[in-house]
């Protein structure tokens, strides 16, 4: 099924625009990818500190055993997307791409998956996880489906951040975000401020981003305004000690939400 670009864009954006838990939003995004991009399955996962993945959502032909084939082997399209911070495409798993990830490819074949595409999900340029799409016929990703895959990869940062905010709500505050607006996440001054907080507090850029958002919400400012205060050295976010201990080891950080 090939939808036009306007339908794809609006559908994907609407999928992350609703209220609900991070997992519910991630599920909506995966379902929208299947519906709008002509896929038979989609999944979103977060890389955790001990070099394992944590499944946030999956649907369609993406099964637990398909994911496990990536986790256990330590390689697969999602790992590659995260490690290279770039789009990974394997349009023919039973042909030209068959030797890339043997364990994953065997599990994919068993599930009827012939092509897989993985987008890194980044915060301030740092990969946090991957959104991946599975299709039962081989072939490149083209036109609105490809543009949609990239857009979905960008939008997937919102449920990933929300998941971390939910599980670490004491540490970062829990401001409700207007989820469909990803603009604040991708501005130069926000990246720079995230870098400064990362260095100052010794936290992952994703937590730096959440602290920035939390401070903006608490003070009724835009994220951009807070970013400028930090860059111009008018503001330092405190390491306020409320629950930050948990951040000193990110292993398995978002485990509270139900897991696989």
């Amino acid at each position, binding site marked *: 099924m090939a939808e036009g670009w306007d339908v794809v*864009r609006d559908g994907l954006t609407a999928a992350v625009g609703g209220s609900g838990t991070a997992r519910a939003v991630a599920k909506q995004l995966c379902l929208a990818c299947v519906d709008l991009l002509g896929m038979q399955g989609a999944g979103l996962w977060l*890389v*955790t*500190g001990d*070099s394992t993945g944590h499944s946030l959502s999956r649907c369609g032909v993406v099964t637990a055993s398909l994911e496990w084939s990536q986790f256990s082997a330590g390689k697969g399209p999602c790992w590659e997307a*995260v*490690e290279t*911070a*770039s*789009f990974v*495409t394997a349009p023919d798993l039973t042909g030209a791409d068959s030797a890339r990830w043997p364990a994953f490819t065997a599990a994919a074949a068993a599930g009827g998956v012939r092509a897989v595409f993985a987008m*890194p999900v*980044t915060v*301030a*340029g*740092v*990969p*946090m996880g991957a959104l991946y799409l599975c299709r039962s016929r081989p072939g*490149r*990703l*083209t*036109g609105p489906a*490809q*543009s*949609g*895959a*990239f*857009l979905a990869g*960008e939008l997937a940062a919102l449920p990933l951040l929300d998941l971390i905010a939910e599980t670490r709500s004491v540490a970062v505050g829990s401001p409700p975000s207007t989820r469909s607006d990803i*603009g604040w996440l*991708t*501005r*130069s*001054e926000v*990246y*720079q*401020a*995230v*870098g*400064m*907080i*990362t*260095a*100052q507090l*010794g*936290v*992952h*850029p*994703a*937590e730096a981003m959440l602290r920035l958002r939390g401070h903006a919400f608490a003070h009724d400012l835009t994220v951009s305004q807070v*970013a*400028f205060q930090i*860059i111009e050295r008018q503001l330092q976010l405190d390491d306020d000690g409320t629950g930050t201990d948990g*951040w*000193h080891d*990110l292993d398995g950080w978002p485990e509270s939400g139900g897991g696989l």
Partner: protein
Amino acid sequence: MIKSREQDIIDSFSSLTDRVVGNMDVLELTAELAQDCARLLDVAAAGLLLADAGGVLHLLAATSEEARNLELFMLQRDEGPCLDCYHTGEAVNVADLSTQTARWPRFTAAAADQGFASVHAIPMLLRGDTLGALGLFGTTPGALGETDLALAQGLAHVASIAIVQSTTRADRDEVLPALQAAITSRAVVETAKGVLAHIHGITMQEAFTALRDTARKYNRQLADIAREVIANAPPTSRQLGKSSPASPGPKNVP
């Protein structure tokens, strides 16, 4: 001896095209290209904006690395000559910004605040597609002549070719991954600038220069150096998933 303008133009194109055919880094090349644009076209500031899959403009390179200067480019996601240029695929030339306050109220106010009076936006074209726009800002009112506009378009073409050069075909499907990769690379560089600015108490401009010089010294990509800087950010490094690769580079520049 002072170089003639003609010689300067030749040298710039020669240096840029050498990099395109050689082992070049898109971020470094476009940063150099922004500097060339400002000098050769006698404008105060220049920057390149690249569109992502959703048509949102992202900053790729600019003559200044300071956040307040970048803001003027960021603002053009919502309104401004670069956005109009991207949508139409045609140059937008505004000799006097004060005449356009109704067209772009927020952009003209921000530009005036920073002392800019004129702006020219040149499309970055590839076949039938527009990839983004090159924005040129002047501090005095005035239009660029036809020769200068042609030169600006030539420089914008070099940028387009540099960004998509790794791809074999040149349609939108083929270049989109390259555009997204460039946008992500720029994001990680901005974040690393913030890390260095905090650690060393330096400006964002100085932080960028330190990153660029380190990349050159070790003959590595700017984005790779930036990733390592973030992974090694004190007091405790926090890189999800894996530790930074053991490759030549600094344990934190500068």
